[in-house]
C-alpha cells in the first residue's frame, strides 16, 4: 500500500462489514489504499485533513463508500456536509448500505450521491459489486479535478 495509490474511504461502523469490504477490494486486484472511518465524525475529520491546507497538498479519496446508519453523524448528514464543502463536493460518493428503503435512495440522490448500492447479502455478488465500483471510480476516473487543480496551482 504505497502512498501514491488511490484512496478508498470506507465509512462504516460495522467491523464485519469493514472486513468484508477489505477482502472484496483486495480480491478485486484494483490498486488502492483503504482508509476506514467508523462514524460520520471520523469521516468528516478525515476528509477535512485530506482536503489539504496551505502547506500540504490535498489527498482526496478516489471513492467514498458511505454507509447510512452511522453513530454520531449519520450517513445522509455526512453526504450533505461533504457536498457543501467546495473541496469535497465532487469526490465520488457511493452510498453503500443495507437499506432498500425508497426514501433513503431518493434522499441520497437528492443530496448528490453518485450512486446508491444496496449491500448484497450474497458474498459473490458483494465481491462483484465492490470490484465494479472500484473499476468504475478508481480505474476509469481520473483524479478528482479540484484536487488536481489544487496540486498544480
Amino acid at each position: 500500500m504505497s502512498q501514491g495509490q488511490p484512496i478508498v474511504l470506507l465509512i462504516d461502523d460495522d467491523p464485519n462489514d469493514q472486513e468484508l469490504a477489505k477482502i472484496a477490494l483486495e480480491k478485486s486486484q484494483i490498486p488502492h489504499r483503504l482508509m476506514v472511518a467508523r462514524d460520520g465524525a471520523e469521516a468528516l475529520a478525515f476528509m477535512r485533513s485530506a482536503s489539504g491546507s496551505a502547506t500540504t497538498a490535498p489527498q482526496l479519496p478516489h471513492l467514498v463508500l458511505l454507509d447510512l446508519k452511522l453513530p454520531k453523524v449519520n450517513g445522509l448528514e455526512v453526504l450533505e456536509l461533504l457536498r457543501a464543502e467546495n473541496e469535497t463536493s465532487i469526490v465520488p460518493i457511493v452510498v453503500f448500505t443495507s437499506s432498500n428503503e425508497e426514501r433513503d435512495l431518493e434522499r441520497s440522490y437528492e443530496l448528490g450521491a453518485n450512486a446508491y448500492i444496496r449491500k448484497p447479502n450474497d458474498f459473490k455478488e458483494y465481491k462483484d459489486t465492490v470490484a465494479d465500483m472500484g473499476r468504475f471510480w478508481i480505474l476509469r476516473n481520473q483524479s478528482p479535478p479540484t484536487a488536481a487543480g489544487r496540486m498544480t496551482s
Partner: protein
Amino acid sequence: MNRSKPVQDNLEQQDFRKLVDAIPDYAIFMIDRDGKIFSWNQGASRIYGYDGSEVIGQNIALFYRDEESPEKKVKAELDEAEAKGRYQEEGWRTRKDGSRFWTNALITPLKDESGQIQGFGKITRDLTERKVAEERYRDLVDSVKDYGIFMLDKNGFVQSWNSGASRIKGYRADEIIGQHFSRFYTQVDIDRDHPSAELESAIETGRYEEEGWRVRKDGTRFWANVIITPVINAGGELIGFSKVTRNLTERKIAEEELKRAYDELEAFSYSVSHDLRAPLRSMAGFSEILEELLDEKLDPRSRDYLSRIRSSARKMSQLIDDLLNLSRLSRASLNVDKVNLSEVATKVTEEIRRSDPERANIQVEIQPNLWVEGDPNLLRIVMENLLNNAWKYTSKTEKPVISFGRTQKSGEDVFFVRDNGAGFDMRFAEKLFGAFQRLHSVDEFPGNGIGLATVRRIIHRHGGEITANGKPNEGATFSFTLRPSPTAEKDRK
C-alpha cells in the same frame, strides 16, 4: 248613474259575501266592537266546528276558553287592532269539541264612512299541522345528543341550543343564548378572526365545513367537525346560520395513536431492513471466505456445513426482504391504471416456463383480454404469486392444468386462478392467507408462506376480497374481486 251605483254596490256586496262564505280554508268572520260575532263563513264552521247559528251573537272569548281570562285576552287583541290598525298572532284556540288547534289570526278594524270603528274582521288559518311538524322537528333537534345543533343570528349570536350542544360544549341553553359564538374558539382562532371568516365563507359558498379544536365552557378543548349553513328567508335575505358541531375528539385521539403506532412500525421495519440483514451478510460472507481460505484442507462434511450456513443466511435474507415488501405494501400509494390481467398472466407464465423448463407438460389456459383497473405492479405480484403457487402445487400432478379466467357472482366480476394440484383442506382455507402459515411442509413444497399474505394485502388495498376453495389432491381455486373504483376517484378529483 246615480241609481245604478247602489245597485251595483249591492250586487258586489252580495257576490263578495257569497265568495267569502264559500272559502273553506280560511275562517273569515266579523265581530262587533266588543267581540260579538255577526258573520260566519264556511271556513269558520269547518275550522272552529260551530255552525253560524251556534256562534252568531256569541263573544269570540268562546274560542279562548282554555285561557286564564278569555275576556281580557279578547279586549287586549281588539284594543291593539284598533290602535295599530291590525293585530296578528299565532296561538292555540279551542274548537267546539274542545280540541285545540294552532292558528294564525289577523284582526283588522272595520270603519264606517266617518271613520268610526264599527267592528272587526277576523281571518284565521288552521296551522296545526305546520305547528306540530315544527314542534316535532324542534323536539328532534333538541333530543339529538351526538350533534350540537344550534342557530346563530346573522351576526353570530346564539339563538337556539339543543341538548347535544349542551353536552358537547358544556353550556346550558340559558347561559349561551344571546352570546357570540366566537367563545367556542381558541384564542389563536379568535386572534386570526377565524369565526367571522367561517361565516363569510358559509355565505359565499353556501356551506362551510371544517375540523378543528374548539373550547368548552370549562376551558378544555375538543376536536370538532363543524358545518355552518346560512339561513335565508323567503325574500332571499340572510337571517342567520345553522351550525352543526360534532365532537370527534375520540376519533382524533385514535387517529393520532394510530399514526404513532404506524410511525413506530415504520421505524421498526426500517431498522429491520438495516440491522437484521447485516449479520446475515457476515455469516454468508465469512463462511464463503473461510471456504476459500481452507479450500483443499476442507473435508466434504465441513464444506457441506459451510454451505448450509450460507444457504440459511440466503434464505433468511430473502425472508426479511419478503417481509419488508409485505409491510411496504400497506404504505405505498396505489397507482391505478388500466391493466390487462390476461396479458400479465401470460407474461408471468412465460417467465415461469423459462425458469422451470423441465415442466413443459403443464397446460395453462388464460381467458384473453380481461381488463381491470388497478396498480399494474401490485397486480403483477398477485398474478406471480398465484401462478407460481399453482405451478408449485401441481408438481406432483400427472396432467397439470392451470387456468385463469373471469366469472360473475352477484353481478360482480370474479377472477380466478385454478389448478388441479395438491389442493388443501377447506378447514384451513383462512390459514392460507396468514403470513408464515403453511399447509404443506417445506420438503413437500418449498416456500416461506408470505406469498398469499402478500396477495391478500394487495387485493384488500384494491378494495377487493380473495377466497380459496379446494380439496386435498383435487386442486385449488383462488377467486378475487377488485374494486379500486379508480374512475370514481378520478371523477371526484
